[in-house]
């Protein structure tokens, strides 16, 4: 469904990604893990059209997304939950969700999707008229995911959804991600919480210093000794 081929890219003359290829199958959960500064955000931002690649291609359902503006990528069904949530802090919860449903195809189903999102995150219905900036970190992450769902994604890109959240909240968020996936949405999730991410995903890629150094079944990587040393401190 998503095929990313040989992406290189960076900022100015500083290269952050070297020939990175990743693919996500229909209905799959794939995780991209790696240390701080490895280039994970740069990579998903390139898929979402928020950042331009130097070379390489992004294909989704046979459609070339490489040169598309972010709004067009969103309309094609690839929607990002950016790192740090990036909510519209001054807007209410409902208004944030409505922005998710801004493009015409999503707006046509706005009420149904809104109801669905509120059934996934009941707390959002309670908080609907509150300023998003005033919510707790966990609630803000729920708004960020809810906002992305309002765009009716077929592939959801999640950039460190657990960032700065308490372990119990992380568990809830991961549970929700699993449920969203079960409704048929494919997921590419970037994480530093390596163990949880590997338990959630079916396949995984390990990115280090802009290069894919390992990839394979998540369960296999979870057992891998060298990875355990590097990431789980075992």
């Amino acid at each position, binding site marked *: 469904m998503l095929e990313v081929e040989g992406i290189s890219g960076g900022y100015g003359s500083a290269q952050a990604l070297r020939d990175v290829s990743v693919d996500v199958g229909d209905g799959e959960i794939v995780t991209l893990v790696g240390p701080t500064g490895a280039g994970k955000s740069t990579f998903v931002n390139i898929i*979402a*059209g*928020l950042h331009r690649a130097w070379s390489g291609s992004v294909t989704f359902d046979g459609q070339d997304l490489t040169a598309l*503006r*972010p*709004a067009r*990528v*969103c*309309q094609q069904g690839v929607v*990002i939950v*950016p790192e740090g949530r*990036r909510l*519209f*802090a*001054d*807007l209410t919860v409902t*208004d944030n969700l*409505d*922005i*998710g449903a*801004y*493009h015409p195809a*999503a*707006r046509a189903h706005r009420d149904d999707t809104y109801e669905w999102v509120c059934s996934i995150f009941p707390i959002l219905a309670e908080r609907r008229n509150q*300023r998003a*900036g*005033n919510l707790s970190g966990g609630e803000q992450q729920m708004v960020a995911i809810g*906002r992305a769902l309002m*765009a009716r994604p077929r592939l959801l890109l999640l950039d460190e959804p657990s960032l700065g959240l308490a372990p119990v909240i992380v568990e809830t968020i991961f549970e929700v991600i699993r449920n969203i996936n079960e409704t048929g949405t494919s997921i590419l999730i970037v994480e530093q919480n390596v163990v949880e991410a590997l338990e959630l995903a079916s396949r995984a890629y390990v990115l280090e210093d802009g290069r894919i150094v390992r990839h394979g079944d998540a369960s296999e990587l979870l057992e891998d000794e060298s990875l355990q040393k590097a990431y789980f401190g075992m």
Partner: protein
Amino acid sequence: MSDVLNQAIVSGLLIGGLYAVMSVGISLTWGALRIINLAHFSFILLGAYATYQISTSLEIDPLFALLVVIPAGFLAGAIMQIFFELTKVDEFQSLIISFGSVIILQSIIRTIWTADFRRIDRDINPYESMSFFVGDVAIQVPLLLAFGAAVGIALGTSLLLSRSYFGKAVRAIVDDPQIARAYGIDNRRVAVVLSGLATAFSATAGVFIATFQSLSPSISLGWFGIVFPVVILGGLGNAVGALGAGVIVGVAAGVASVQWGPLSASLVTFLILIAALLFRPQGLFTRQGSS
């Protein structure tokens, strides 16, 4: 309280409505688009002269000019914003560039209508001296009309910004333009429409000015000292705030000028502005924590 004071308060309140209409356009584009567009002052003046010309040439009620001035103002604002988008100016550059456009527009106005005072003939302008009394206080009809327009614009704009998809898009762009774009908001188009709307408001202020005042190219110089205090007191991008601030400035200046003479009016206005900048830099009417 004396009759003179009562009259000053009521007249100040009403003219505060006009101040709000004059200020709301600048406030919106400054607050939402981070563009300080001084050309609004020229568009107020152009709106006034256009009203004078339409009313005088066609011998019709000056308020009919709204039918031309509103769409023309919208178009002018939209075109200016397209220019700003193409040149990618920042806040400070917009100030400089729009100052240039003020000079050009000012000289165009001077060329067309000369520096002489222009006034719509009383035969076709029923509003100029129209007033009625409530108790001992005279209510000037042209100011009352402007006040009504101010209330309509303030409430309409705030509803538009809070309820419509367009308004949500505007506020999302203010918060995080990159993510707003990612969800399909065409921020250029939104900016162009908003600037058009804002300029239509400014041009509308000109229509009301023409109903009760003589026009000369230099009258716009006096507006800077009113509009900027109102914009800042009201809070950038806050239309209802602009109305509140317009009323405060109108009443304070009106009362000051009957108490201490007309020269004190602008002094009092600036004292209020300085106090507001010290104690509430986000404006009197903006909630804490929102921008």
